């Protein structure tokens, strides 16, 4: 899967949870889920579940803790896809 496609998919997944829509305008690997998009921290769990469903992978608690930015998420998805 191309990097660009993964980023697009993440953007689509995170959009309904985003409380700061301006954060989506400049969506890139540096985008921070909580600081830039103001995703409620409780909803991060739902983002993870949606990512799991989209890519058919499982993200353990440890990997989840390291998922602060879009780039972190992309790297974890790539890793899991490679090892699947």
């Amino acid at each position, binding site marked *: 899967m191309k990097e660009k496609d993964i980023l697009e998919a993440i953007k689509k997944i995170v959009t*309904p*949870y985003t409380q700061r829509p301006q954060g989506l305008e400049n969506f890139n690997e540096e985008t921070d889920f909580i600081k830039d998009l103001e995703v409620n921290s*409780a*909803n991060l*769990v*739902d983002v993870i*579940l949606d990512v799991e469903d989209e890519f058919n992978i499982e993200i353990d608690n440890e990997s989840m803790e390291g998922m602060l930015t879009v780039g972190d998420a992309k790297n974890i998805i790539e890793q899991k896809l490679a090892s699947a």
Partner: protein
Amino acid sequence: MKKRVVITGMGVVAPNGVGLANFEDAIRKGESGIRFEEELERLKFSCQIAGKPQLSEEKIAEYFTPLQIRGLNSSGIVYGVIAGTDAWQDAGLKIEENEQPDWDSGIVFGTGILGVDKFREAIHLIDAGKTRRLGSTSVMQTMASGISAYLGGILGCGNQVTTNSSACTTGTEALLMGFERIAAGKAKRMLVGSCSDHGPYVWGGFDAMRILPSKYNKNPTEASRPMSASAAGFVPGSGAGALVLEEYESAKERGAKIYAEVLGGAVNSGGQRGGGSMTAANSDAVIRCIKEAIHFSNISTEEIDVINGHLTATTKDGLEIENWKKALERSDFPYINSLKGMTGHCLGASGSIECVASVLQMDKNFIFGNVNCEDLNPEIANLVSEEKIPRKTLEKPVNILAKSSFGFGDVNSVVIFKKL
């Protein structure tokens, strides 16, 4: 000094009408909200009919954000949020996105059980070893106080925000809890109400107790027959009712419409003694509760124009009237009606939906007719003259109305409303 408390807003999600105008129209015409439920037939219920509010997805989307709707599977929260938000707006109050909450406004919004369908989802996932797949809203959709928590966040209330639970008295009790808080000067406004989930997992236990009618699956609108000789048990319902209670001075100051004043009321329990049990009321406690409500409201029994009873359509309806008769000690009897002929018994939501129906009658000068009561129970006919049990809606001013609710656990509550 004790503050006076008035009602300045209402909202309702009932099986026979969503929104005040539709609901008023339905209760004036005696329209039933009881329908056949295929799901109950498939699940082999004896009673395959129920009262369920009719809501479209578009309507729900007006009250919840798209994010809130994702995975929302708690019908009680849907009903309660719609009724509560409507009541707030009906009172002319704004929903503001301020940094500070409204410290003077609180919520008492009760429920019997909440988020049953969401809980079922969770049980299936947990039993399959997939607890991590529950998502983030399993807790808030199933905690009893989920309904007051959702409303508290939507409305930004900063006073007490809580949920009460006392079976079928829940809604009436919530109203009295909010009343007391304002009367004591601890809040200016309290949104009070209650909600009840729908569905087989809520209603199944009652079906198992064989207290629901089983012979009306083909003619559902005739099934709920309060005060009739052929009353065969209560029809299960669901929904929500909500009222904004407000300190009289505050309501006057902002020029709000005042529906009625809450004069007072009483709650008590029969202690499951003296004929009372988990499911039956101790009559002494009921009589005491009525008398106390009248006493605290500072009125005489003669002043009561209308009683909106609990009257669920069981063989106990006669006893309820007898208790009123003993408590009032007057030669005649007020008009009396029961909403449940049209909505079924909306369980935790019944008290608040019926309070809304009560106050609507006062505001619009009518007494709604009792449906399915052509064959008045002779036991009741011996106690009350037939004309006091209207079968058709009467256009008549109502000055003082008494509303009672009784519930499992032998708990009672009575509230007295007065037109201003």
